[in-house]
């Protein structure tokens, strides 16, 4: 349903016919490494789809086989699990180029720069872009044959290199299509004797079509795993991400769009950092699925710090075909089982929902929330979608942290790549 990363090892195995690399874990031994590589000048890197490994010291160069196992153990203690070992390819920093291909509506967008490697971060404006459209058998960019384009230096490369690149691209695109690869980045890539030698590869596949194994979400906790497993068993959609286990705002949202609008509103009101989780259910899930989904979220909530007030936002837009009464009966069943604990945790529930069987669903929810003492507020389609957010803010009042950092903000993702010389 979305573009997901695959491991560098898998990508290289698929795209480079003579690739030799060794996947490693914390228990890989020096002997295994020595037996695998003829050379003993090696590079070790993390292979879990994160950007900017170099900056975090997760790429090590010029290692001998016996130097590697201690580093593997050390990285494992930091919570990492998948590594890749390759021979070092000696080269000058100035030989590093940047190349990326991304599937667009009207063709493949080719991005190329002479200044690859870490430099590309500082010189995005030097990256030349063109869209390659297929016309019959020939790839064309801006109406010109690809040959002309690249060989004329329009993407900023000398003629010989342009021809090498062109040959490579023509050969690789059918492979990308066959595997539903939608994004491929080689940085850095060397051009040598009319050959492309990619040193680092990042690759995304379209998970709706590809059968390639994707990298699981690194931060997945127990409740996220349970919901992912639940999601896999239903044609409906059930998504959950734990952001801040001690957050005071818990959400049970429905619809990909409405859940985003509600999360925006929390952020706009300055209380995004109190948000404990993000997620949504949609596509007419069965009430049993909604029950299990709610149960997992509630048990996560009840594990959290009880010293401050809690709120649960049960909200969504006006559904087209998700039955409000049915899905609410699943939610109520799960709430009912935990109503005493929820009261002790000083939790209040704020509801806004519309759609099929709205009146009956809301009435049922209202009766339950009143009787159990959990009622924050309850609204139907006539109340603006984001009003519950203000009500929650008013309820939580001084218990809002605002400044606490959700777990993800502290995570290592999204820093800059600095592995200069591999």
């Amino acid at each position, binding site marked *: 349903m979305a573009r997901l990363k695959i491991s560098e090892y898998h990508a290289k195995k698929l795209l480079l016919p003579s690739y030799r690399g060794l996947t490693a874990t914390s228990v890989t031994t020096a002997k295994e490494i020595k037996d695998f590589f003829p050379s003993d000048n090696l590079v070790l890197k993390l292979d879990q789809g994160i950007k900017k490994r170099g900056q975090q010291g997760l790429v090590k160069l010029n290692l001998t086989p016996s130097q590697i196992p201690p580093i593997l153990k050390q990285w494992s203690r930091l919570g990492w699990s998948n590594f890749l070992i390759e021979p070092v390819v000696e080269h000058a920093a100035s030989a590093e180029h940047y190349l990326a291909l991304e*599937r667009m509506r009207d063709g493949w967008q080719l991005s190329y720069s002479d200044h690859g490697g870490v430099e590309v971060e500082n010189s995005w404006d030097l990256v030349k872009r063109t869209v390659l459209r297929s016309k019959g058998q020939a790839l064309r960019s801006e109406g010109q044959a690809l040959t002309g384009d690249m060989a004329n230096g329009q993407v900023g490369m000398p003629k010989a290199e342009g021809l090498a690149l062109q040959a490579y691209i023509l050969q690789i695109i059918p492979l990308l299509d066959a595997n539903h690869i939608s994004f491929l980045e080689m940085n850095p890539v060397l051009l040598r004797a009319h050959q492309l030698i990619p040193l680092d590869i990042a690759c995304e596949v379209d998970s709706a079509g590809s059968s390639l194994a994707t990298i699981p979400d690194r931060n997945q906790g127990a409740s996220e795993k349970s919901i992912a497993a639940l999601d896999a068993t239903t044609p409906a959609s059930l998504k959950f991400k734990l952001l801040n286990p001690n957050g005071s705002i818990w959400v049970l949202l429905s619809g990909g769009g409405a859940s*985003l609008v509600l*999360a925006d*509103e*929390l952020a706009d009101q300055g209380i*995004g950092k109190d948000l404990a989780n993000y997620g949504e259910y949609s596509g007419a899930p069965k009430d049993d699925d909604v029950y299990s989904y709610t149960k997992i979220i509630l048990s996560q909530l009840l594990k959290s710090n009880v010293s401050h007030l809690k709120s649960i936002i049960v909200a*969504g837009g*006006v559904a087209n075909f998700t039955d409000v009464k049915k899905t609410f009966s699943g939610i109520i069943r799960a709430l009912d089982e935990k109503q005493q604990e929820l009261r002790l945790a000083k939790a209040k529930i704020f509801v806004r929902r519309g759609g099929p069987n709205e009146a009956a669903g809301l009435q049922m929810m209202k009766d339950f929330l009143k009787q159990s003492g959990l009622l924050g507020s309850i609204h139907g389609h006539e109340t603006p979608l984001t009003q519950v957010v203000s009500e929650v803010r008013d309820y939580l009042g001084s218990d809002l942290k605002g400044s606490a950092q959700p777990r993800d*903000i502290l995570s290592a993702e999204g820093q800059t790549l600095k592995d200069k010389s591999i």
Partner: protein
Amino acid sequence: MIQIQDIRNKINKIIALGNHEPIIQSILDFDYFSGKKQGSVVGIVTGRAGYSKYFFGRQEILIPTHATLQGLTLKDEPNPKGRSDLKVNYWFLNLLSGRRTLSSVLEGLTLKEVPNPAYTRVGEGQTLSGFAGGVIFAENVPELHSLQILKSNSSLLESKLIVGPASVGLLVPGVLKLGPIGGITPTQILESKIIQPGSVAVMSASGGMCNELMNVAIQAGHRLSFALSFGGDRFPILSPRDAFLLAQSDPETKTVLYYGELGGEDEYELVKLKQEGKFTKPVIAHIAGTVASLFPESPQFGHAKAKADKERTTALAKRTALKSAGFKVSNSFAEFIEFVTKIRSL
């Protein structure tokens, strides 16, 4: 491509691919409340020839089911003497799974490309031009399949109005309900006032937000000219650009309400349309996903497209671009509602 006005001016018939009882019944209810003499769903491709029971008002009806699409005859209504124009628009409503979308849609598209005696129009000896278009309901259609459908569609002599994948449908009040759009229960259909036509067009990347925007417009006292959801995939067959052109050429549409999300470049096409003067009607737009800035790297949100992998595709960048092109863009959903409330009654 067929224009919205052509939908209003003709009889619309629907062939459903896949039998989804609540959705099909909701279309028949919509037809009944709209005062039609019969329901618009005239056939259901189920893999087996026979009949399926439904209700039209209080009356039980039998809708023919078919083994394959190829077994169908798309018949035009008899025309008054001396007239040769077609009176019927045929629509497909693809309710099959994501995996079966490509083959079934291509099968539908070839109706025009490969002349088949089965589809020859009864009467004037003219060939019926196949489907006017359709809706693809399934999620999880591979990007490549969408692009293949897109390519086949654009290579046709006249491209068809294909909405989706992952779309809740296309609605022309009182005329056509192609999908679960607007609701599936009789109460919802009546209360949501989607029977009465008006002048506000709604278009949305999200199915739920499509209905929410319709709700916002109705609550503010407006009625709709048409509504559709592109679906939240990366390559919707009907692009937001195409949909804006439909709104531009529609004489009934006075204002457009637009809901988009972070991810993808579609909004920059809207900016271009505006700058080139090809779109001139008032628009109120909301682009969701500013919450992504709380994260170091944009997370993947609910829809396949909802991830900003570069600065240009963040919600904030797109809001700014749309604003500077002259569209009215809200900073919050509450502000969006406020803008809609202030549309002058037309």
